[in-house]
């Protein structure tokens, strides 16, 4: 801490990241589509980062596509994911002195992220979230999770089930019992 206080921290690193993002790598979806993505951006995925690092040389990385076999990584989902990482790769690092985990979790999504994740096609939305989870892109999973939670907010169980197409596997008695237990939520302030 004391050491890096004397130079503006991270400038060199930022340049390296920008340089590296000029290198394009290929990502292959489970449907076979191949898409280009900047290296730094692609490395926001811990899965891709590990694969790239285990492959070693840049030559291999830029010629052979990285295969993302999970079925959620459709062409459409991969295109969305590349759009997201290409936009976010140079986000400033989290400032641990001032932003704790709790604050970050409660922070509202940025305008851009909101528009990005507000996808009408729920199958695509779930593909993007599941694919981001598979690819280990924590920031994007968080965006998806915040989006879904903002839609759940204030809704009844039945409304949530209808919206997210969730099967109710409780019996009527079980559901009643839970409702009674949680009746305090519906109490007037």
């Amino acid at each position, binding site marked *: *801490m*004391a050491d890096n*206080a004397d130079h*503006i921290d991270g400038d060199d690193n930022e340049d390296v990241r920008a340089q590296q993002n000029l290198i394009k790598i290929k990502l292959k979806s489970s449907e076979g589509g191949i898409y280009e993505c900047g290296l730094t951006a692609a490395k926001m995925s811990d899965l891709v980062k590990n694969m790239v690092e285990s492959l070693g040389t840049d030559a291999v990385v830029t010629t052979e596509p990285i295969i993302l076999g999970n*079925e959620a990584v459709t062409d459409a989902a991969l295109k969305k994911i590349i759009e997201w990482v290409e*936009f976010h790769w*140079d*986000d*400033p690092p989290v*400032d641990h*002195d*001032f932003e704790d*985990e*709790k604050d970050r*979790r409660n922070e509202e999504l*940025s*305008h*851009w992220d909101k528009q990005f994740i507000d996808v009408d*096609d*729920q*199958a695509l939305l*779930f*593909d993007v*979230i*599941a694919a981001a*989870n598979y690819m280990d892109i*924590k920031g994007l*999973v*968080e965006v*998806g*999770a*915040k989006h*879904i*939670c903002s839609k*759940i*907010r*204030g*809704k*009844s*169980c039945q409304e*949530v*089930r209808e919206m*997210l*197409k*969730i*099967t*109710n*596997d*409780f019996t009527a008695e*079980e*559901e009643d019992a*839970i*409702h009674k*237990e*949680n009746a*305090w*939520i519906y*109490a007037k*302030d």
Partner: protein
Amino acid sequence: MDMIQQMKHLKTSLESANDGNKDNKQQPQMYAKNSMDRFGDDLCALIVSYLSLEDRFRCECVSKQFQRTVFGSVVDITLNEKTLYKKLNYQILTRIAIKCPNIRSIEMKALKSKYSVESLKVLDIFRDNCRHLRQIYYNFRKIIGEFESLITGINSANENQSLDRCLQLSRLRVNSLSDVFHISSADVSQQLLAKNLHKFSFNYKSSDNNVLLSAFVAHNQSLKSLVIVMSDENHETLTEMCGQLSRLTQLRELNFNITIMNGENSLSDSLRTIGLNCKQLQRLTLGLMTSCEQISDQILISLAFFSRLKRLDLTLFAAIDHKSLEPLKLCHRLTHLTLYLHSNDINFEQISAKYLPRIQYLSIISPNLLIKNKALKAISKLLTLKSLLIMSSSNSSSGSGALSASIRFASSFFCHSAVMTTSGGANSGSATNSRFGSPISFRANHRNGFSKL
């Protein structure tokens, strides 16, 4: 990051505890692509971890998967008068504690002291059901008793007998410095009751002599955040106090609210001492209640010794000279800048990408100031900016026009000063904070500036 790790562990433990539960990951084909049923427990848990506590309980009966996953990520709970005494009772709280066994931290700082007996009972409930409970932010010290070892924060205190038994205490707010001392009148000795704190907040009063402060500083070298409110102290007291504060070399955050009526002050020298010695300081909030222009100018000059700051929040009530903001040019690392000014002629040449290459958050509040087109153009070129708030008397359509034209804002973000209440002195700290939540703050992407809004 932590949360995800935690989720993964949770998933493993859930699986072993719930043999025979369907594992969605094994047979993904069974579920429609647009149904959330397709997600495994770990991903489902991660998603619902962003719900509020009430929404979690409301959603418990959505499905068995929701029931399994919705409570595990509850790690903190805030109890105030409204939730605790109007909605909840001990039985409900017990149920909450049983369902949310991973609660680590309880915040009760807004609770009034007349509820001290009830709050002990509540703490009992959570301690018995939540094995990981290790942080309590409390509002009063009366009969903490057996919970002393869990108390990590105290919000205000009138009785200090048991303060020294809270060995985990790291956050403390008191009315005056003497509250953290046990002062025995018999032998004129004082015993310091709070040591090794991380956050501290107090009102400096003339009765708190600098001997107390010296003892406090000596035993709280760990202090990272300090809030001080003081009014009209004489030159010597102020200088000596700042001298003491400059010994807090671990300080990251300093919030200094000061009222000065008398111009005979060397506040800039005092602040310079802090700036030179507290090298870890990254966040500075300065609220200066004075009508004296000289003092304001002096304060600004001393900013040159705070060039490491990442966040600066400046509130000045005196009119300042248009060149006074010059020292800001040296604060290259600022990511957050808030200026609350009572001046009508400032040129904002300091607000440019050249001097503020990292700025993410900018807020300028100035009731009388007409912000000129030139300044607005400079602001529109701050490509790192994520959030911008401007409140001024300027209703010049050409002014806002210039800005919106160059950054393509859909809506105007100027605000007439009349709707803003001003506050100062003891309250200016909180006023500063509340402004952050102002509805007219705009976010733009940090990289592409406002052009993508």
